[in-house]
Structures are given as structure tokens and as C-alpha cells.
């Protein structure tokens, strides 16, 4: 038993280097059930995916999480100037909150391919119609439902 306890302690001591941040709990724990959503007018998802309203502060952490497909890999976000080396392969998100409604952003995050089938942008809340997903990600979305709502709350502050 002492050996086991020592092993657990050693594992915990190593944990900070590899353990996912709390933001990514949906990528490692039990697979959360997929929240159903309704598309209205082909361009919007008006109803939030969660009861809890989007939190722009957590949303800021969600969209800048470098180890989980951050927007900044591809997009520039001028209001996130403390993050260097922003990507330039997709349109700038400057003024995003003035250009779109939350309902429009929700569809674009959940599955932008419904609007632009050949877009390179990943669908952040989709599990089907994908090819050869790595075993540990099968059945999992890139963002949790709460991540989507929090991300939208943050993105709407970019004006």
C-alpha cells in the first residue's frame, strides 16, 4: 500500500505538466451528452446551448486556450493584443460583436460548414461526419456547450 501511495504521489507531482486545464474537462472525462439545437433561417441558432448565461471572462480564456484550437491560430483579434503571433490565414475578428448577433455567431461556432461547406474552420460543436477522429476524441466536441456560450459572450465584446 505504501508503494501504491508513493506511486500516486509521484503521479500527482508530475501532473501539472501534462494535465489538461479545467477548461478541457469535456475532452477527458465522461463524454457529455450532445445538446440539441435548432437552426432558424439557415443562419442562426437563437437559443443558447446552456441554462447558464455566457461568461465573457471565462470565454476569453476559452478562445485563447493555446492547447485547444484557439481562434488565434488562424484569426487576428486586435483587442487581444497581449497575445503575440496571431494567425493571419483567416479574416480578422476586428469588430466582430458589431458585425454579428450572438445567434449568428452561435451557428458559426457550432458548425460553420452549414454556411460555407468548404470552409477550413473547424466545427466547434459537432461529432459526426468527421474522418478518422483520434480515439480519445471520438464522440467529443472541440468546445463544450458552456465553452460555446462563454466564447460567444466574449466575442460579442469585440467591437
Amino acid at each position: 500500500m505504501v508503494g501504491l501511495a508513493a506511486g500516486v504521489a509521484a503521479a500527482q507531482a508530475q501532473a501539472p505538466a501534462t494535465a489538461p486545464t479545467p477548461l478541457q474537462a469535456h475532452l477527458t472525462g465522461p463524454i457529455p451528452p450532445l445538446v440539441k439545437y435548432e437552426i432558424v433561417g439557415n443562419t442562426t441558432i437563437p437559443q443558447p446551448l446552456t441554462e447558464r448565461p455566457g461568461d465573457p471572462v471565462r470565454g476569453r480564456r476559452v478562445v485563447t486556450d493555446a492547447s485547444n484550437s484557439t481562434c488565434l491560430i488562424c484569426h487576428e483579434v486586435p483587442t487581444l493584443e497581449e497575445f503575440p503571433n496571431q494567425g493571419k490565414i483567416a479574416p480578422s475578428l476586428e469588430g466582430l460583436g458589431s458585425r454579428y448577433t450572438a445567434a449568428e455567431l452561435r451557428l458559426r461556432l457550432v458548425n460553420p460548414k452549414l454556411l460555407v461547406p468548404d470552409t477550413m474552420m473547424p466545427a466547434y460543436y459537432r461529432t459526426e461526419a468527421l474522418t478518422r477522429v483520434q480515439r480519445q476524441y471520438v464522440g467529443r466536441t472541440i468546445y463544450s456547450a458552456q465553452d460555446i456560450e462563454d466564447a460567444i459572450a466574449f466575442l460579442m465584446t469585440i467591437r
Partner: protein
Amino acid sequence: MKALLALLALVLATAVTAPAHAQGWPLERYTVEDRNSGYFYLGRQTRLLQDDDFQNPGMFAVDQGAALWRRVDGTQGRSCQTCHQNAADVMKGVATRYPAYDAKSGGIINLELLINRERVEKMGAAPFAYESPELLALTAYVSHQSRGMAKNIDISGPAAPFFEQGKEFWNTRRGQIDISCAMCHDDRAGMLLRGDVISQGQTNGHPMYRLIWQSISSTHRMFEWCNTSMRAEPYPLGSPEYLALELYVAWRGRGLPVETPSVRK
């Protein structure tokens, strides 16, 4: 004032003079038509590291490969050199033609697997593990003998279906992130992905020394890394899927010079 100018001129002259042993091909050599070697997308520091054989960390693998070339191993009491003699003569140009269709196996074979087959069949030695330092070293050494020669991949006849298979792999969106090789390396080469410039994904410098891994690395390891970066299930190194992809990618870089050992980020 004159002395100061003279000193300035001296400093400038020293700064722009390359070391005598640097390879330093002109930049135009890294481009053939619309095809750019990964070298083209590197910063100055990394280019200099590759250019100088005394600093290029991939040269350690080449040197190790030279020693392995001469080392007797297996039940037949032979080394590579026993049959092939001087690698600088007989291996010159070989890497420009691989991967290639192989009638014996009825599939695609690359340099790594060819070296291993020779070890088993001609030397009576055990094959090296795919990404082992030994197999990488021998592959790097053999490839290095073709440095400067143009890649010339045969995709005709029996190679054609494998070429198509590799091309389809390249163009298929994969993984949870749902992005194909082509979306970045065909459509967006030269653009900034976060802080990095996207290259065309050319393999003419392989095996390469990859700085983030701090090791000499095979093409298949890079495929595996790209796949898992897209959160896609990788294929085993040396698998038929990766061999077909390697054939397609090598053909994509036709005419580019063999640079082994290249240095990449």
C-alpha cells in the same frame, strides 16, 4: 571619422561573409516552378544552421550512418559496405528515386524499409525499429549521398494506383479539427499560422533535423505529428497508407534538390 568608417566597413564585411565551409546554395535553388522547399520558408538563423555542416545537428546522424554502413552485423558476417563498397559512389542518386513501386512486395517501398530489407535478406540481421536512431542514421547517410540532386519520382505504371491513394489521403479532411493536408500546404503556404509560416510540406530534405523534437526525424513521423495535430488517428510508421502518402508528397516536390540533412522548425 575615417577610422570609424573603416571600422564600420570591416564589421559589415565580416557580418556578410559566410564561413568557408557553409553550403550556402543560392535561394533560387530551393524553388522549382511553383514548388518551394521548406528551406524557402525558414528564417535566416535556421537556414544558416542547415547551411553549415559543422553546425547542422543532422550531420551527427549522417556521421553515425557512415559508421553503421561499415559495421558488420547479422549471421552473414557482412556490412552494407561488404557488397556496396563506397556509398559516395554507389548511393549517389538513389534517394532521388524513392519512394518507389517495389515489384517484390507489390507495394511502395521507401529508403527506410529498403535498408531494413537488405539487412534481413542480405546480412541476416534484425531489422531496425522504424524511428530508431540507427535506421534514421543510415537513411540520412544514404540520402546525403544525393545532396543537391533533383527528386525524380516515378508514378507511372504499377505505382499509379498508390499515387492516387496518396493524393486522396492528402486531400481528405481528417480528425476532430477536420482539416486536410492540402488546405494548409497547397492553399495557404507562406501564410502565418499563429507565429509560424506554413510551408508546402515538402520532403526533399528528409530525414530532417527537427528543432522542436531535437532529433533527426523521418517523413512518417512528421505525417503522424500532422495527423495527431488535427486530432486524427495516425497510421503506423511504415504503413501502406503512409507509404502511399510519401509517394504522392515526394512527387509533389519533383525537381527539388535533396537537402538531407535539412533543419526544420
